């Protein structure tokens, strides 16, 4: 289910037409059917996994919810007769039962995710150990195909379960509706990780055809394709060359790769999310934003609050908080304060929870060490800047630079460079290579590669660089304009022929300059002698 295949685009067009032509009360059911058909076409066996997760989560959440309702009713009924102690005991009993269903469902959902995603990684590491200390036969790898979107929908179901358990909202009683929340097709390829109380507001509602809503959605989709096809997929050609043979491209090339990847990842990921949100928007469904101009962040912490926001907040809400305020952590904190002193002791829970969050974030991105190292490297930078923050405050107070444009720009560029460098772990997919390549920046002086024509030997020609430059500038301008008011709204204020021309022009740019289709990788249409 690649966003850039013709089949996907045609399928979306068909879904949209049908969605608005059927009776409105069937709209959400149709969406469920369409999602399952598309998901099935991506891989028939995927349906089994998503169905297990959906069914187990649905049943357990319902049970948890009905226990809560029973509890409330019971307490109300026996308000007069129960004393405080009895109430507490009763509540504890209910909680215990609920916890059983919570853990049961989490076990199945996360078990599937971990089993599918991490078994081979675990085997690999066990093999690494047993082959180095003994001459035992290594364990053979399992032949597992990862179902599309399992990382995303599993996280959605986990969030849902925990929220229901915490009585944030009641469980969904309609199985179909719940299945749609888990399997809503635009979200399956790259998220975002939606919250049930958020997505359910518009997902099941009846939507009347509204030209403005639909055209806004289509515009957002087009913008997403521009980022993905014109910029990301084009930069990818050069990036692939650099990554295919790291030893051939040290020094300044590492820096070029950093910049390429920064552009490629941003354009690809935010473009994909634009397409997802845009598709939902055409059907009147509101999917949470996942990015908030991340490259304008002044420090890494801010960056992580603005990049892949649904993931970040998921980790904060479902891992960081529960762990750092757990009874165990509070006790540990108390002990640590006694042993290590007030100052260090009170940091223990936060630090432990932070490290755990980043370890999980790393491994969530991919089952290999480079991702774990990448996650922990982020963690180290965040903790260091946390420790240095009093120093920063002093510096800011002394020199009065905060709020000055040049200082803000400096911070923004610093953050981009830092993040780009860290990200190279997931680019080279090899920790040693990444570290070696990073240091080659300071040992290999080949900066002339930037202008001596070497850049044209990476699979990108002058026109490609111009297009990339144009694209980056356009994204930058749009981001700047967006700060005050949505660009789509601004365009809407223009006379009709002008705005129609703007969108047609963008469409033509995507159509012509998009890096898609037959033989794109071949430099041109070359015939043999015949």
């Amino acid at each position, binding site marked *: 289910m690649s966003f850039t295949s*013709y089949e996907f685009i045609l399928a979306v067009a068909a879904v949209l037409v049908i969605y608005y032509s059927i009776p409105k009360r069937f709209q959400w059911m149709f969406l469920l059917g369409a999602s399952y058909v598309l998901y099935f076409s991506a891989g028939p066996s995927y349906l089994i996994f998503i169905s297990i997760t959906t069914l187990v989560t649905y049943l357990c959440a319902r049970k948890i919810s009905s226990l809560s309702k029973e509890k409330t009713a019971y307490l109300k009924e026996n308000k007069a007769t129960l004393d405080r102690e009895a109430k507490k005991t009763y509540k504890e009993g209910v909680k215990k039962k609920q916890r059983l269903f919570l853990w049961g469902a989490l076990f199945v959902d996360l078990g599937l995710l971990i089993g599918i995603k991490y078994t081979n990684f675990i085997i690999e590491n066990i093999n690494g150990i047993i082959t180095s200390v003994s001459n035992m036969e290594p364990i053979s790898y399992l032949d597992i195909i990862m179902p599309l979107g399992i990382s995303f929908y599993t996280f959605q179901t986990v969030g849902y379960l925990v929220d229901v358990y915490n009585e944030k909202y009641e469980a969904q009683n309609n199985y179909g509706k719940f299945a749609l929340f888990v399997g809503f097709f635009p979200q399956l390829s790259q998220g975002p990780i939606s919250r049930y109380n958020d997505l359910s507001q518009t997902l099941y509602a009846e939507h009347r055809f509204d030209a403005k809503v639909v055209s806004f959605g289509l515009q957002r989709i087009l913008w997403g394709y521009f980022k993905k096809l014109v910029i990301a997929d084009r930069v990818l050609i050069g990036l692939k060359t650099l990554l295919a043979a790291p030893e051939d491209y040290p020094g300044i090339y590492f820096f070029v790769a950093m910049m390429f990847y920064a552009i490629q990842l941003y354009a690809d990921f935010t473009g994909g999310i634009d397409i997802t949100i845009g598709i939902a928007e055409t059907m009147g469904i509101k999917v949470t934003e996942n990015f908030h101009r991340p490259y304008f962040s002044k420090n890494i912490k801010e960056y992580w609050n603005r990049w892949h926001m649904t993931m970040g907040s998921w980790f904060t809400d479902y891992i960081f908080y529960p762990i750092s305020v757990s009874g165990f952590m509070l006790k540990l904190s108390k002990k640590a304060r006694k042993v290590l002193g007030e100052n260090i002791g009170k940091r223990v829970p936060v630090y432990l929870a932070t490290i755990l969050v980043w370890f999980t974030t790393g491994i969530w991105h991919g089952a290999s060490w480079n991702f774990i190292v990448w996650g922990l490297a982020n963690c180290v930078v965040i903790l260091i800047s946390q420790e240095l923050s009093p120093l920063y405050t002093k510096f800011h107070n002394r020199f009065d630079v905060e709020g000055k444009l040049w200082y803000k720009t400096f911070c923004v560029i610093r953050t981009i460079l830092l993040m780009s460098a860290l990200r190279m772990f997931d680019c080279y997919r090899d920790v040693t290579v990444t570290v070696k390549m990073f240091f080659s920046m300071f040992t290999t002086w080949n900066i002339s590669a930037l202008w001596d024509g070497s850049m044209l030997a990476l699979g990108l020609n002058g026109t490609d660089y111009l297009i990339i430059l144009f694209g980056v500038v356009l994204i930058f301008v749009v981001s700047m304009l967006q700060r005050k008011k949505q660009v789509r709204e601004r365009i809407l204020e223009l006379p009709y022929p002008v705005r129609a021309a703007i969108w*047609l022009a963008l469409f033509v740019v995507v*159509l012509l300059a998009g890096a898609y289709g037959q033989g794109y990788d071949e430099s041109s*249409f070359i015939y043999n002698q*015949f």
Partner: protein
Amino acid sequence: MKKVLQKIVPTIVVVVLVLAFLQELLIPKYMTDIIEGAMIEEYYDSEKNHDVLFLGDCEVYENISPCRLWEKYGISSYVRGSAQQLIWQSYYLLEDTLQYETPEVVVFNIMSLMHAGPENEAYNRMTIDGMRWSSAKWNSIQASMTEDENALDYVFPILRYHTRWSELTSEDFTYLFHKDPVTFEGYYLRVDVRPVTHIPEPKRLANYQFADYPMEYLDKMRELCDKKGIELVFVKAPSLFPHWYDEWEAQVDAYAEKYDITYYNFLELAEEIGIDYTTDTYDAGMHMNLSGAEKMSDYIGAKLLEEHGIKDHRNDEAYVSVWEPKVEAYKKAIEDAIAEEAAKKQ
């Protein structure tokens, strides 16, 4: 509602016009360098009164000259040839042609039986893009696509050629709305000479059996001809390479015999008709030049009249008025080409 229509209708018209214009601009014109891409399209402009249809790859469009056949025998014919035309493409071109006319004889060059399946996207495009839309074109696309191809690229060629915007030349603008003919009734005129100096040693093959896929289309072609009352004739051009294996010859012989189909193998007939490999080929034995093509046309023309019941139309005014100007242009082109060749040599 009226207001909405006032907005939407002009918008759609403008969008379609812009996209159609871009598509026309970006499609390769095949007017100067690789003219083979323009051949298939040319047929639709010709007068549809052909008695003989030649089908096949370069071994047809380089070797048979319909103008010569008219001049010498009064035969009305057309060559629907294209570069590396695969047999399923030949079959669908036959279907396509039958929508416009029904010839008496279809001459098919059997070289393409050697191709077991779809091979090359570029050649596919050159054979298929020029076809007008019909079920034949659609089926030809389906039969010809390589694994990475998508039918939508044929339906909207702009999707295929979109990257050409940075490579557009003056040719793309000159031939935006009209094209010049590149052949003479499907014949690709070449007068230059490159003698055969060396014949590459044929490679040993793992399997000499023609694959089922091309054979299936040979059956389809035969059945379609039967149904329409058309006589099917096989030929093999006198090209020295790619090598024509004895094992292949035996299979074609057997098939021809089984279904009572006439088969002319010009590799065997070369001597009889006087092919001189030092003067009659322009690329050292792979393709015939004008001299070789006229010798072949002379032979097959005589056979068509004598043994296949084709009529001489030289006394029929309706035919003469169509063919006379064509032959004149053909002769003029030959003169020009010879002069150009001579100029090159000096």
